[in-house]
C-alpha cells in the first residue's frame, strides 16, 4: 500500500440480476482491484469508466467485463477515465451557486433584450425580405372562408359611396411600395363597425363602419390605418414574433408546464398582446403621416374613434367591462397630437375626454 492507493466502499452489480453485493474497489496507479464477498478481480484503471457527477448522487463505475460498481461521490473519482467528458464542465458549473446566480442574471438580460429590442427588430428585417406574395393565398382563402361562413354578406352600400371611398383609397395607396398589392372590399357583417387588413394586402371595411363615419375623411382615416398594417408587414411580423415567443416560452416553462396549467399559457398571451398593441400604435402613426401627406387631418381619426367608443358603450351595456379599451383615449390623444403636430409639437395637448 502506498500513498496513491484509493479504497472505495460500495455495491457491485453483475448486470445479470438486479441484486447488489457489498464490495470494495481499490485502485493504485494503473491497477484496480474489485474485492467482493468471497473473491476478487483485477482490472486496468484506464479501462474503468465513471458516470458523470450530478448533484450529490452516487456514481457508477463501469467495469470492462460488464459489471458495475456503485459508490458515493468523492473527489478521488476525478482521476478515473470519464464516460462523458463534455459533461464534466457542465457539472462543474452546476456545482457553484455563484454561477447559477450569474446564469439567472444572464437569462433575465437576454430575455428582456430579446423581447423589447431584438425580436421586434429581427422580425421587422426578416419580414421585409419575405415577399408579400407568400401571404396572398392565405388572404384569399381567409376572405372566401369568411364569405362562406356567414361572417360576411354582400355590401348594401350605394355604388356612389363605394366609388367615392375607392377614389380616396387609391389616392392613399398611390406611391406606396406595396401599392399594386392592395385590394379594397366592402362587406356587410355581423362583426359590426370594423375594418381589417387580411394577409397579402386585402382590406375589408364593413358597411357599419362606413355608416358610423360621418365624412369620407373618417373612412379614409380607418383605411389609412389598415394600409399601415399591410405596408409595415404586420401579418408576417406577427407570425414571426408570436412563434418566437411561443418557442422561447415553451423552453422556459418546459419544467413547469406539466405542473401548472396556468403557468405556461399566461405569459405567452401577455407577451403577444403587448406586440399586438404595438402594431396598432405603429399602424396609427403610419396612418397619421399618410393622411397628412395627402392633406387630410388625423383629427378625422380621433372623432371617429370617439364616436365608436361611445356607441360601443351604449350597445353593450352589460358587458362593457369586457371591451373597455383604455387604449382608445390614448389613440385619440395621439391622433390629435398628430393633427396639431406640425404647428405645436412642443406644446402638450390638453384634451378633455
Amino acid at each position, binding site marked *: 500500500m502506498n500513498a496513491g492507493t484509493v479504497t472505495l466502499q460500495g455495491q457491485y*452489480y*453483475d*448486470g*445479470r*440480476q*438486479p*441484486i*447488489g*453485493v457489498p464490495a470494495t474497489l481499490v485502485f493504485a496507479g494503473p491497477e484496480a482491484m474489485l474485492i467482493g*464477498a*468471497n*473473491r476478487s478481480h483485477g482490472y486496468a484503471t484506464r479501462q474503468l*469508466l465513471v458516470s*458523470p457527477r*450530478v*448533484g*450529490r*448522487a*452516487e456514481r*457508477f463505475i*463501469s467495469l470492462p467485463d*460488464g*459489471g*458495475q460498481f*456503485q459508490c458515493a461521490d468523492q473527489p478521488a473519482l476525478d482521476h478515473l477515465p470519464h464516460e462523458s467528458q*463534455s*459533461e464534466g464542465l*457542465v*457539472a462543474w458549473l*452546476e*456545482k*457553484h*451557486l455563484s*454561477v*447559477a*446566480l450569474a*446564469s*439567472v442574471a*444572464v*437569462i433575465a438580460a*437576454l*430575455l428582456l433584450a430579446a423581447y423589447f429590442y431584438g425580436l421586434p427588430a429581427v422580425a421587422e428585417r426578416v419580414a421585409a425580405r419575405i415577399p408579400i406574395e407568400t401571404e396572398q*393565398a*392565405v388572404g384569399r382563402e381567409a376572405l372566401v372562408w369568411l364569405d362562406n*361562413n356567414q361572417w360576411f354578406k354582400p355590401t348594401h352600400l350605394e355604388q356612389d359611396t363605394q366609388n367615392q371611398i375607392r377614389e380616396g383609397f387609391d389616392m392613399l395607396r398611390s406611391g406606396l411600395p406595396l401599392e399594386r398589392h392592395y385590394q379594397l372590399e366592402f362587406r356587410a357583417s355581423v362583426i359590426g363597425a370594423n375594418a381589417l387588413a387580411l394577409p397579402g394586402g386585402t382590406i375589408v371595411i364593413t358597411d357599419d363602419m362606413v355608416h358610423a363615419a360621418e365624412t369620407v375623411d373618417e373612412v379614409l382615416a380607418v383605411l389609412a390605418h389598415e394600409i399601415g398594417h399591410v405596408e409595415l408587414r404586420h401579418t408576417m411580423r406577427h407570425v414571426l414574433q408570436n412563434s418566437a415567443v411561443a418557442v*422561447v416560452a415553451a*423552453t*422556459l*416553462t418546459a*419544467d*413547469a408546464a406539466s*405542473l*401548472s*396549467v*396556468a*403557468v405556461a399559457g*399566461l405569459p405567452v398571451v401577455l407577451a403577444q398582446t403587448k406586440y399586438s398593441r404595438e402594431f396598432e400604435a405603429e399602424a396609427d402613426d403610419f396612418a397619421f403621416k399618410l393622411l397628412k401627406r395627402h392633406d387630410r387631418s388625423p383629427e378625422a381619426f380621433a372623432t371617429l374613434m370617439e364616436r365608436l367608443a361611445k356607441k360601443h358603450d351604449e350597445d353593450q*351595456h352589460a358587458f*362593457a*367591462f369586457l371591451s373597455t379599451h383604455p387604449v382608445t383615449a390614448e389613440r385619440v390623444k395621439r391622433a390629435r397630437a398628430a393633427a396639431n403636430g406640425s404647428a405645436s409639437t412642443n406644446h402638450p395637448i390638453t384634451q378633455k375626454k
Partner: protein
Amino acid sequence: MTEPYANLAERSPENSGQPRALILEFRGSARDYFRIWAVNLCLTLLTAGIFSAWAKVRKKRYFYSHVILDGTPFQYLGRPIPILKGRVIAATLFSVYYLSSHFFTSVMPYILAAGAALAPWVIVRSAAFNARYSAFRNMTFRFDGNYLGALQAIYAWGLIPALVVGTMFQWWGNYKGAAALFGIFGLAFPWWISRLKNFIVSHTSFGGENGKFSATGGQFFKVYFIAGLIVIGAGIITGLGIAGVAASASIKKSQFAFLLFSLPFYAGYVFAFAYVQAHRGNLVWNQTRLGPLRFHSTLRGGAMAWLYLTNAIAIVASVGLLTPWAVIRTLKYRTDHMRVLVEGELSYFHGGDTSAVQAAGAELGEFFDVDLSL
C-alpha cells in the same frame, strides 16, 4: 462471478411468500436542482436551443439518480447527440406543419396524413429510447413494441382516422357532424388511452420480464367521467352565479361578480385536471405488474390540485425562479405516494448480454437511435 453473490444477497429469511416493500425515496433538493436548472437554461438560451439536448440529459440524470429504490439509484444513460437528432427532426416536422397551417393551407391535408402515419413511429421510438437508456442495478429496460403494434393501438378503433379525415374535408364547418364526432371521440377516449398504456406497459421489459397491464377502459372512463362531472358542476355554479347577478346588479357590481364567479370555474378546472393526473396515475401503476414487482400508487386529486395551485402562485410570484422548487416538490409528492412491493425474489429478473449498462453505448452509431419524446 454471478452465482455465489446472487445467492448471498437474496438469502434473507423473512421474504418467503409475503410480499415485502422495497423502500422508494426521492432525495432531490430544490437548492441543488436550482443550480442545474439555471446553468442549463442559460446555456440553452445562449446556444439558441442547441444545448437543450445536453440540458435534458443533465436534468434526467439528476431526477433518475435521486430516485432511490431499495438503496440503489436509477441511472439515466441517454446521450445528447441522439436527443439533438430527435429535436432537429421534431423541429423540422413542426416547422413544416406550422408553415403549412399559416401560409400553404392547401397542402395541410397531406401534412396531417403524413403526421398520422408518423405518429406510431414516434411513439415506438420514444418508448424504446426511454427504456433503453434507463437502468437499475446495471440492467437496462427494453421496449419491444413495433410500428405495426403502435399503429393498431392508436388507430384500431378508427378514431384518429375519423378525426383526420374529418379535418381534411372540413367537416368542422358542419356543426352536427363535428358535434357527433366530438361526442364519439369523447366517449371512446378512455378505451383509447387504456389501449395505448397497455401497448407501452406490455412491451416494456426488465430482466427478461415484460410488464403486464390489467386496467380496463371502463376504469379509465370512470376517472374521466368524474373529472367531467367536476367541470360541469363548477360550470353550473358559475353560470347560476353570473345569471343571478347579471339580472339584478349594476355594471360595476356585475364586473366584480363575473370575476368572482369565474373563480369556481377555474378552480373546478384545476381540480379536475389534478384529479385525472392523480387517479389515472394510480390506475396505471396499480394495474401494472413487472415480474415479481407490484406497485401501489396513492396519489390524491385534492393534494395534487393544491400542489399545482401553490406551484403556480410560487412560480408567478417569483418570476419563474421557484420553478425548480416546484418541480422537486411535485416529484417528491409522487415518489412519497408510491410503494413498490416484491412478491418472491428479485433474482426472478435475468439480464441478457445486451442488458448491461455498457451495452447501451454500443448502439450509439445507429441512425434511428433518436429520442423523440418531449
